Structures are given as structure tokens and as C-alpha cells.
């Protein structure tokens, strides 16, 4: 009895500690972004400017588009590949895992130096849009997405399910889209979320390749208008958190609606 009460108290204490650890910096951001520099007054000017500053809105749009493109690219590249490897060439699974984890072991700076040469060609072929960053981002998110999808696939007897579907008349694309994907959907959502979070926060590559994504704009702005850059930072964190909640709701809705 006594022990469990102590245990509960300890749990609350830990929860509060962690909450403070995460929330204090956010509160500080909010505090700073609503202050009028040099006075004790409060103002929403920095937040208003977020929506009005064209560099900022452009940075936000670019980053959101990049996040979307990266998720789509990652899902289209990774999901069929991983299912295929599991079904047909299990011997290659080590190789695929190694390739997917590789970006983690190479420092971003090195990637940028290497990729600059490639980008000369990319820019030549598909133009100089900041959205071309999606190519690098798909590579950068591979290690995290791979883990999430691999875990989901690991909980499934992919081979038997695929064979059952095929014997019922399903072609390979139907097997993947109607049988495997619905069952690894939570894993795909997790992979997508990690990708979105990573793209919204990625600074090194975009800054060194001279593209104005949200993090680059925030850093630039912090040198001229600190409160606005803090507001943007907080907004992007809140946005990412909202996205997580939305995605998990999407997952729950889908599950209950299957019952009909």
C-alpha cells in the first residue's frame, strides 16, 4: 500500500519533471516572442508579422511542401521495396537495412559536400526550385522511416497473407495496397511523422545549398527581428505537435470505420 503510494508519487514527480523540461523552453519562447523589446509591455506584433512577412510565409510554404513531397517520396520508395524484399528476396534484407541506415552514419556536412555536385545536375535537369531538396530529404529520412516500417512489417506474417490474397485472385499491386499497407498503416504513419518533423527542422543541408526553408528563414530572421523568429520557431513546434495528434486521430478513425 505504502509502496504503491510512493510509486505513484514518484511517477507524478517524474511526469512533472519531464513536462517542465519540455514545456519551459516553449513557455520561454512564448514569453520572448510576445514581449516588446526593452519594455515590459506585451504585443502580438511578432505573431502578426509571421503571417505578413513574405519571406516567412514563403519559408513556411516551402517547408510544408517539402514535408509533403518527402513523405510521398519516402512511402513510394520504401514501402513497396521493403514488402518486396520480405516476400521475394529475403537475402537482400540486410543490404537494404544497411543502405537505409547509411545516411545516419555520414555527417550532414559531408553529405552536402558530396551532394552539391549531384545538385548541379538536378538543377540543370529539373530546375532550381527549393522543392528539389526533397531528393536529399528522402535519403535523410530513410534511417528513421525504415525502422518504423520494418517494425510494423515484423509484426505481420507478410508471406502467408500475400499468398492467401494471391490465391484469392489478387495481383501484386492489390496485395500491397489492399492487404499489406492497411495492416502496417500505423508504421507508415509513424514513418511519415518522423519525416515531417525532420524536414521541418532540417537546417544544414538547405542552408548550405542556399534554399530558404523555414529553419533557414528563422535563423536569418533571428539576426534582425528576434521576437518574430522565436514566434516562428514556437509556431513550427506547435504545428508539428498538432500534426502528430491529427495523424493519430486519422489512424483511429480509419480503424473504427473498418468495422462497418
Amino acid at each position: 500500500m505504502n509502496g504503491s503510494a510512493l510509486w505513484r508519487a514518484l511517477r507524478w514527480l517524474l511526469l512533472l519533471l519531464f513536462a517542465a523540461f519540455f514545456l519551459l523552453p516553449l513557455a520561454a519562447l512564448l514569453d520572448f516572442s510576445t514581449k516588446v523589446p526593452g519594455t515590459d509591455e506585451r504585443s502580438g506584433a511578432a505573431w502578426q508579422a509571421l503571417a505578413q512577412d513574405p519571406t516567412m510565409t514563403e519559408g513556411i510554404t516551402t517547408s510544408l511542401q517539402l514535408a509533403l513531397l518527402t513523405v510521398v517520396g519516402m512511402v513510394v520508395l520504401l514501402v513497396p521495396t521493403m514488402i518486396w524484399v520480405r516476400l521475394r528476396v529475403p537475402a537482400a534484407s540486410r543490404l537494404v537495412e544497411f543502405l537505409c541506415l547509411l545516411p545516419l552514419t555520414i555527417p550532414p556536412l559531408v553529405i552536402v559536400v558530396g551532394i552539391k555536385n549531384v545538385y548541379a545536375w538536378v538543377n540543370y535537369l529539373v530546375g532550381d526550385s527549393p522543392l528539389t531538396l526533397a531528393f536529399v530529404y528522402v535519403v535523410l529520412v530513410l534511417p528513421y522511416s525504415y525502422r518504423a516500417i520494418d517494425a510494423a512489417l515484423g509484426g505481420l506474417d507478410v508471406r502467408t497473407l500475400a499468398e492467401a490474397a494471391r490465391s484469392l485472385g489478387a495481383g501484386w499491386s492489390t496485395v500491397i495496397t489492399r492487404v499489406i499497407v492497411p495492416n502496417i498503416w500505423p508504421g507508415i504513419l509513424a514513418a511519415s511523422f518522423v519525416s515531417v518533423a525532420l524536414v521541418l527542422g532540417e537546417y544544414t543541408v538547405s542552408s548550405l545549398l542556399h534554399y530558404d526553408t523555414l529553419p533557414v528563414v528563422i535563423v536569418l530572421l533571428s539576426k534582425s527581428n528576434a521576437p518574430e523568429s522565436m514566434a516562428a520557431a514556437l509556431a513550427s513546434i506547435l504545428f508539428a505537435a498538432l500534426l502528430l495528434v491529427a495523424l493519430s486521430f486519422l489512424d483511429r478513425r480509419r480503424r473504427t470505420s473498418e468495422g462497418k
Partner: protein
Amino acid sequence: MSDAASREVRGATQGVAVEMTGLRRSYGDVHALDGLDLHIDPGELVVLLGPSGCGKTTALRILAGLETQDAGTISVGGRDLSHVSANKRDMGMVFQAYSLFPHLTVLDNVAFGLKLRGRSRAERRTRAGDMLDLVGLGTQKDRYANQLSGGQQQRVALARALAIEPSVLLLDEPLSALDAKVRVQLRDEIRRVQRDVGTTTLFVTHDQEEALAVADRVGVMKDGRLDQIAPPAELYSTPATPFVAEFVGLSNRVPARVAGEIAEVLGTRVPVLAGSATGAGLALVRPEAVSFAPDPEGEARIVSISFLGPVSRATATLADGTEVLAQLASSAGHRLQVDDRVRVEVEPRPVLVVGA
């Protein structure tokens, strides 16, 4: 024969014939199939029986199109399917591993194949519901696979396989993952359902009791080919090879001497089966053809008795050290005790004699 008759009574003989000819398949140095020939009559249930690695599952998977043969042909209902892909073969399959789609309800699982065939929603629901009624799960249609027992999942899998009105039903050790009691129930149910719908069926198992219980004909496989294929009773009473005699049911190996059509086994003259050795050899005698008579002068001695309910099994050693197993009515078994002296008697049923 009686099977064909009962099918006709039910008016459900829409099955088609299956013809597998000269099938070969190797994995590296291992010949999983070494020239398998198998014919299945329309509406017939054939069981492939054999030890693990004998090629029975490979044969079924090749028929399903899930694996490709190195050589040989497959034809179903006169149509050559040798190189048709699995999703166009129109075969229903039940797997050893649970294979229901976890994200779909029982009803949607059964309707899955119909949906792929573009049937209307109403038709899918009716047909899937009928199939679930057929396997006794009509009330469970809104559940998910993880809410069902293993036996229920396999019933749903059977309903799902039959819903598409397959030309051939393939059962790949569907009962192996279930516990003993459910296994017996479900195998009888599979047999009943198969008779009802009349679909030509290939059933693969390593369990000889299961094979004998459900089959119209049992094919015993060894090293990638058929050793013998025959109705269960025939397979049991007149095994064509020593392997069949010993794999199907229990057999004693008792010294015997063959002269012409007759073997002398433990003092009894017994007819021999075709394919037997001549001269001195070992007769493969079924335990139920052996009995032990208490006799203080007997040359054999009881070494163990086990009570199995309606029957008992007793083992005795002969003077030369040979062990003989007898299956006795339990009433007879009660009269014996370990270390009793007994006389071994053999019923004059035909036996297979192999070279010593």
C-alpha cells in the same frame, strides 16, 4: 464408391479433374519433387501424406502457382495451368499458418475474393454469409481475426477459400496448428463441407490418422514421388511398399519365411502381399493382428502394457529378443501383467514381407 454415390445424392458434382504430370522441382541439391504424377478425379478429396521433406507441400504449392516447377505440367479441368500465375488459377487455399487479413472483419475476409471479382456488395454479403453459415460461424461475421480461436480462424479461412467457388480446394496442413480435440472436429467438418460443395480437393498432411479419416484416396509420398496411392482401407490392408506399411499405422517386424504365396510367421501360415521378398525375411505385421495368450510354457514375455481406453497395447519379447507390439481389447489387456509368459498368436491376414 460410396463417396461418389453420396455426392450424386446431394447433386453437387461440379468438381473438375486435376492432372499433374512429371513434376520436378529442386532446391539446390535437394530434389523436392522427382517426377511426381498425380491424377485427381472431379470432386475427389486426395490427401498427400508423408514425412517432412517428402515434397508434399511443394506439390501443393506448385499446383497453387505459389512455386514454379522445373519441369512437368499441370492441367485442371482440361486447361493447361503450368505457367499461369497464382492469382489467375482460381484455387481456394487454406494455409497451416493463420492467414486471415487482420484489418478486415470475418465477413469482409470471406468476401475479399468476391470483391476482387467485381461482384456487387449485396451479392458479396449474401455469398459470404452463406459460406460462414456453412462452416458454422454465421454469428461471428463482425469479429476480427484476433477475436477468434485458432479453430474458428481456420474455419473462416475455409469459408474464404470456398467463397470464390474455386475449381480446386487446396489445404496445406490446415489443422497442424490446432490442439488435438479441435483438430478431430475440424477435420470431420472439412470432410462434410467438401462433400457438400463437391469441390475437387488436395489436402496435405503429415498426420496419417488425419489422412485416413478424410481422404477418398491417400497418396503416400517419399523422396519427391508417390510410393502408393489408394483408398485408405486398401492402403492400410495392402501396403505396396515397406515404407507405406511402416508410415501408415504401426507395424511389427517379425522374422518370417516365405514359400510361394505363404509366409510362416511365428508358427502361423499367412498369405503374402505382392511385392514381398522370398525366403527368409521380416514380415510387417499390424499390432491388431497380434494377440498374446497367457501360457506358462510360452516363449515370449510381456515387457510393457499401456492402457489407452477402449484398447490396450502390450509389448512382449520373443526368445530371440525381437519385440512384438499387440493391440488388444482392454478386457484382454487386463488379464496380462508385466513379466507374464505368453504365447504369441498371429491372425492370418495378408502381410508384406521384406528382405531381412
